[in-house]
């Protein structure tokens, strides 16, 4: 058995993919909390990237943390896994592009990934690496997660038991 086959078997195990899904969901929930509490500081963080016209920044600062917390919670619970993985993956892709362009342009700014405090978290190459790691988790969840250890599965199993009785 080749190394890749062994790896594939390991990664495709329901428990492993479920753990990845819960971990990715938890990352998004944790990341959203400070942004929800401090929307103005988060708007400044987005402005610091100087990627978007200032007219749209507040709208994004209002909506993005809630999208993160809701998609993250759904991922943890295993509700609409593929849809929420797609949302989280798209967000991670956008974050990666934003971080990469800021690094290339030499903007000395905070990432704003987990905190809105501008001096707490200086952006580095590792910020981008972590985003790409989480994006790879999302891809693995999209490919291998079949909804085991999810809320939907619990309800379906309950129904099946009732029907079999």
């Amino acid at each position, binding site marked *: 058995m080749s190394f890749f086959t062994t790896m594939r078997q390991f990664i495709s195990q329901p428990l492993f993919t479920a753990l990845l899904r819960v971990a990715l969901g938890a990352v998004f929930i944790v990341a959203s909390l400070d942004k*929800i509490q401090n*929307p*103005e500081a988060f*708007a*400044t963080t987005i*402005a*610091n990237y*100087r*990627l*978007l*016209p*200032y*007219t749209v*920044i*507040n*709208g994004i*600062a*209002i*909506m993005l*943390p*809630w*999208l993160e917390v*809701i*998609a993250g919670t*759904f991922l943890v619970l295993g509700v*609409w896994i*593929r*849809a*929420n993985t*797609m*949302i989280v993956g798209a967000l991670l892709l956008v974050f990666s592009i934003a971080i990469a362009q800021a690094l290339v*342009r*030499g*903007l*000395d*700014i905070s990432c704003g990934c987990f905190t809105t405090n*501008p001096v707490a978290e200086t952006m580095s190459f590792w910020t981008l690496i972590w985003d790409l790691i989480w994006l790879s988790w999302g891809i693995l969840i999209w490919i291998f997660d079949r909804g085991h250890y999810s809320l939907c599965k619990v309800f379906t199993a309950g129904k099946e038991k009732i029907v079999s009785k």
Partner: protein
Amino acid sequence: LLIKMIELKKVAAQMAAVLLFSGSVAFITNTARDDRLPLVMPFPPSYQCPSSERPGVPVNVQQALAFFGKQGIAFVDARKKVAFEQGHIEGALHIPYSFVEPLSKETLDRLRHFKVIIVYCNREDSEASKLLAGEIAQAGIRRAVYLETGFIGWVKAGGRYTGAGPGSYDESTL
């Protein structure tokens, strides 16, 4: 393929539902809170410039007139292209202020050759000149200042300019 298409449609519908739900919760919550954000960020936006140097300082029109024509002094027009083409301080460089796009390395290198850089817009309360002067100063070119009275004040004080006077300018051109 048909099953995949149906599956993708289902995923797209679920994504739309999550987006709609999140958007609704976000905007309702924002409306309900005391420290709510306005939907559109007011200009000038607060943001952090690329370095921690000090921002630019103001210069009054009399000081600017005294600097005019001397070697190593640059006047920088921070307004939009249409305003610059209508009229500007004689010999001024045109570097329109952009919130999204920071000054390029080439532009900054070009500005480094000057001893004093005076940035201006139309009016006294224009923000773009302050922001651009701040950005130039924060990029390490410390002698970047902004003209307090703007182009309008410059013309009133008898400063030299090319093109039309600022009387007919659209306010939105800064």
